[in-house]
């Protein structure tokens, strides 16, 4: 054909072309071998005498073969491992499959080229238009070269990636300015994310977590108990979160799946599924493998699933009713019941803690319910009502360990976990303590009134002054107790409660309900000075209350003495007015009276100073609290006219 060709080529071009066909398949040819030193590159045998340009051209084409080899060996390696122990994940499998598909295109091209080469070799008379030459081959391989380059980049970067991370990496590469590249990588991405979408759809429709290779962005903690199902068992696995799935979306998907499980397992509604039509609609969106569609589809599923769950909680398990019950019993909303209970249970609780009998208290509880408006309460609520006695330490009495308790079963126990209930109990104990002091103060007032009615003005002026002193101190205490209680009940609890109601109304799923309740409890506890960091403050409050009890005891004694004294004076008066009596008795008691009075007055003024010192200390500490913003009204109320501040 070519007069000059034989001089230039020791090997005919057609031979080289045939060799190149093998090289394109990643196999060494007759003349083109893998280079010994530079491994991984095809080099034309140096003994073949060809012009440099031809040699370069061959090397250039051989690069395609080299790249192909790389991609091919990657997929083979990965897929071979499928059977082995360290199997690659579903998404990596899809990735390999997608690569294989790309390679199929390449095989077709090589087959066509090979056909041309063979035809040319056999039939001499091929028309020049159909002839194949190195230059033509070069043109043919431009496109596969680019494509394989991209694939090899993907292979290089993604080789050790897994699940969601792989998708993230591919997603980044798919964002490319060259439309061909982005469609190629985008196509692969679509195929790779298919298993992910399948997992998402199983998860949100069935609550099934089918993830043999830990690739999904929801993780299951097998050790979590049924109660912790909602809070702990399922978690987001952040490293597996594809970049196009936002944190919010992931959270939403997590919640949908949890809700499905919650409905089926905890609420016992095993048969429940979304209606067919909505599943189909959502599934259609899913099948398009588009992040935006994912967003839309899950939104709808989220709404339906969670509204069903909330409905169940409300209608079947009466969540609101129980919350209300909690408020009325543990947060002292049911006043008549508590007052009655306080009266009944008082003697029992005055005993040392180890002699308080649970069954006695349960009986008292029962009668308190019967004797108050609580008897008309929903029996379901009353059933939950219980008594809990904490483990006491020596020296504590019944008051320190007693609290009401409220026990609910599944599925509401997800909401009212042990931790949550402990918080309620803590608040109850604080209120209870205050209530006790208040009732003691009130009953002391009764005694006081009795005594002061017995007093005759001109004669018992000294006693009147003493009584007034008592009255003043006790009044200060009542002021504190009333206002503190006001703060707890109105400023804190009612405000927090109305916030809770608002957020419950807005809540779309159980997470939001839990969050709302947590916020409620947090506010309740911190503003009631019961927080963990506020231990010192509440210690002061306790000290103050204990002091009040001590003072009340002291006062009881005083009143007893006064009562005796008045009886004595009455007697004496009667004697003096000639009604008869024992004269020497009066003289003895007369001297006694003076002594008692002096001591008592000293003790009283001591109590007053001590009380004020404690209170001032308390006020100072409250002012320095972190959440002083919310407590400023408390201080304002407790020290309205700066009576304590100025001293």
């Amino acid at each position, binding site marked *: *054909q*070519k007069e*000059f060709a034989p*001089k*230039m080529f020791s090997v005919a071009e057609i031979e080289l072309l045939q060799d190149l066909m093998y090289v394109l398949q990643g196999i060494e040819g007759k003349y083109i071998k893998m280079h010994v030193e530079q491994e991984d*590159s095809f*080099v*034309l045998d*140096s003994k*073949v*005498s*060809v*012009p*440099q*340009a*031809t*040699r*370069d*051209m061959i*090397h*250039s084409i051989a*690069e395609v073969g*080299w*790249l192909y080899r790389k991609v091919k060996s990657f997929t083979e390696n990965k897929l071979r491992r499928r059977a082995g122990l360290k199997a690659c994940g579903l998404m990596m499998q899809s990735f390999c499959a997608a690569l294989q598909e790309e390679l199929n295109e390449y095989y077709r091209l090589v087959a066509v080229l090979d056909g041309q080469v063979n035809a040319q070799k056999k039939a001499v008379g091929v028309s*020049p*238009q159909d*002839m194949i*030459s190195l*230059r*033509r081959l*070069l*043109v043919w391989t*431009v*496109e596969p070269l*680019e494509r394989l*380059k991209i694939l*090899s980049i993907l292979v290089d970067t993604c080789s050790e990636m897994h699940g969601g991370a792989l998708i993230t990496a591919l997603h*980044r*590469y798919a*964002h*490319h*300015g*060259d*439309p*061909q*590249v982005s469609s190629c990588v985008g196509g692969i991405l679509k195929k790779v994310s298919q298993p992910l979408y399948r997992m998402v759809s199983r998860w949100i429709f069935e609550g099934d977590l089918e993830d043999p290779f830990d690739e999904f962005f929801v993780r299951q903690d097998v050790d979590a108990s049924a109660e912790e199902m909602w809070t702990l068992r399922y978690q987001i696995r952040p490293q597996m979160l594809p970049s196009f799935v936002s944190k919010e979306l992931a959270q939403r998907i997590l919640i949908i799946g949890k809700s499905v499980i919650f409905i089926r397992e905890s609420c016992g509604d095993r048969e429940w599924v979304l209606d067919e039509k909505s599943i189909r609609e959502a599934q259609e969106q899913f099948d398009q493998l588009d992040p935006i569609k994912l967003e839309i589809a899950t939104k709808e599923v989220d709404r339906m699933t969670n509204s069903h769950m909330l409905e169940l909680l409300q209608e079947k398990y009466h969540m609101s009713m129980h919350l209300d019950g909690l408020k009325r019993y543990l947060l002292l909303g049911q006043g008549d019941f508590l007052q009655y209970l306080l009266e009944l249970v008082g003697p029992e609780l005055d005993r040392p803690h180890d002699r308080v009998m649970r069954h006695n208290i349960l009986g008292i509880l029962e009668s308190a319910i019967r004797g108050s408006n609580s008897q008309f309460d929903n029996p379901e609520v009353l059933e939950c009502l219980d008594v809990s006695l904490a483990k006491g330490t020596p020296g504590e009495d019944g008051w320190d360990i007693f609290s009401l308790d409220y026990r609910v079963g599944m599925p509401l126990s997800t909401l009212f976990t042990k931790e949550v209930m402990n918080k309620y109990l803590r608040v109850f104990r604080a209120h209870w303590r205050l209530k006790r002091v208040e009732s003691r103060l009130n009953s002391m007032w009764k005694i006081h009134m009795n005594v002061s009615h017995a007093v005759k003005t001109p004669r018992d002026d000294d006693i009147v002054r003493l009584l007034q002193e008592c009255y003043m101190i006790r009044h200060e205490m009542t002021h504190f107790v009333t206002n503190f209680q006001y703060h707890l009940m109105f400023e804190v609890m009612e405000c927090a409660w109305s916030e809770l109601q608002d957020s419950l109304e807005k809540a779309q799923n159980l997470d939001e309900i839990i969050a709302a309740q947590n916020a409620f409890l947090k506010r309740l506890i911190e503003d009631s000075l019961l927080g963990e960091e506020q231990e010192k403050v509440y210690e002061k409050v306790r000290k103050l209350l204990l002091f009040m009890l001590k003072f009340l005891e002291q006062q009881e004694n005083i009143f007893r003495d006064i009562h005796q004294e008045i009886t004595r004076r009455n007697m004496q008066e009667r004697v003096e007015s000639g009604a008869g009596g024992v004269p020497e008795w009066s003289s003895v008691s007369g001297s006694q009276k003076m002594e008692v009075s002096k001591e008592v007055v000293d003790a009283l003024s001591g109590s007053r100073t001590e009380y004020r010192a404690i209170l001032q200390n308390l006020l100072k500490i409250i002012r320095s609290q972190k959440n*002083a*913003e919310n407590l*400023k*009204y408390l201080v*304002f109320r407790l020290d309205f006219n700066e009576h304590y501040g100025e001293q």
Partner: protein
Amino acid sequence: SKGRSSSYPTIGSDAAAPSMKDFPSHVQEVVVVEELLNELLGFEGQMVEATEKLVPKAGSKAGGSGFPVSFKFQEGLDQSVSDLVERILPLGAYFRRVHWFVHDRFDYGYGLVNHAFTAVLRELMKDYMIFVAQLETMFREKKLSLHKLWFFVQPALKTMELLDSVVKDVVSKEGEGRGGALLNILLRWNGQLRGDPVARDVMGHLLTRASVPYFSMLEKWIYEGIIEDPYDEFMIREDDGIEKGLSAADIGDLYWRKRYSCRREQFPVFLEKVSEKVLTTGKFLNVVRECGRPIDCPVASSLSYTTNDREYVEKIDEAFGFASSLLLRLFMDDMCLMQRLESLKHYFMLEHGDFVFHFMDSADEELQKPVRDISLSKLESLLELSVRTSISVSDPYKESLTCVLLKEPLRQQLPKIFATGSSAIPELKKTSLDPLALSGLEAFSLEQKVEWPISLVLNRTVMTRYQIIFRHLFYCKYVERQLCSTWAGQQSLKEYSAHSLLLNVFSLRRKMLHFLQNYEYYMMVEVIEPNWHRFEAKIENVKTIEEVMSCLSDFLDNCLKACLLTNTFLINRLYKILHVCSDFSRSMTTFYRSFSVRESSSSGGIVDLDSRGSGKDSPVARAAHSEYMSAHIKTALSDSNFKKIVVRKEADFHENIMGLLKSLNEHAHSTAGDTHLDHLCTRLDYNLYYKNTLLS
């Protein structure tokens, strides 16, 4: 990946290095054409030698020690053949350079525009390679002579030369060859070659394709408010460091101004005219997005390169219109901006003034103290109490009202603010004044907590102006209240026949009250209200949120100006008067109080309500007491010290008010159009009393 470079072993090349001289001339041509075909595809032939080598930058993908781009044919060719060859040879060089460029920019890091640009270059190169392959076919059919080759390569030569020079230009512009800047380079070439139809077509093709990623970023920004720019190519930069804060005072403003900024160098020239619009469009949408509202732009259409800049401008205008109306609706309807402003007016402009009086009554004692002794929380609770017991209890924003104690008195703050030209909060310079020693009255101001995104509109600048107005009004009201209590003090002396002695005191107080009440009336009725109505009317017709902001700022500026707060000279005069009034009423109050003490001491012992009533019952005792008190008062009033005080205050007052009136008059005449000042003058000097005094 391996580049095609000369670093491959060259063992085979020396095996056959024939010399041209060995061939007869007809064979010579064939050999030359074959060599040229290799050369055109960028493969180094045996008979050429490189004259210029391209050394790649360190670290670039092409690697190697550099490769030749220009060639010279071996010696020994016929001169005529040689000349023709020399003409064709550059084509290979062009191809090499473009090829090298495409190869070099394969890296992802060069950005999307580069990706698109190299993609289109690659396509052109592929066409070129097919063309060369066709030439080869002709050559094999022995139909390709050197002359024919020269004829056929003509169009390719032109195109490749152009590509080559563009590529050279891009490479030479270090650091600019990406994103919008790359587009600008292409645009410049396009502009220079407009006369050449082939070049124009090629450049048009390049631009259309290369700009696709840029336009899709632009679409995302102006239709959705999202920046999707992984390689920092877009003309707008997002600064993630600036978060939308809720509590920090300045953040609203800062967010608006700094969160998004322009990258000047990445601005394509055809968008330069509308750059601000593009920036604000996205910013608006972004705010809407951050508030969790969906954005579905109805005017969204795909943008692509066109030679007619008008088209972009129109589309961007449409997008801008949509975005601004969306944001305006968000602010006006969802965020209730107008109600907000009304609430601000209630408090800061004393429209609901009753709470101020409640507050002054309850917090007077606290406000008199120096700042270091004031408990802010107490002030806050007093304020809350006064608001809750006033008409404002129905105001939905009363919860966000608090108070602050600022570090400088109004008079010192004002000149600083207006001296800097802008009313942004000036740096707090070290003043000789100890901020803790200020009286509460001077430091007190209201403060409204504003949450995001309303804080974008009611930013610090705006709030500062509101505070200035409030502090001013508050102080005026306070002084007025002092004067009124002076009046009340005087009433207690009514029954003692000291009236004639107190006449000058009465009249001075009257003058002061007249001044204050009229000035206040002027501010409230003639300045704030009409301006507010104008503002409301303007707000009805606004189209964008920026207009709202400028209207608001106009409103506040007008108020400040008309309340004389922008003129340092006038404000100094004004405050002197206020101080005189305040001093006067304070000394009078002390004076009266000394009597009431004396009065109670004269009736002997501690007087409680009952005994006082019974004691005064008898007319005789009453008369005697009255006589006694009158005598006392008369002596006190005729005391030279007291007289001196009154006279001095009167002189001070007169001097200052006349000074004020004079400069007001001058001001009113010098600045035409400020009719409000005329009104104020007339009000303050209704019957020309001061003017006549001034003249005499």
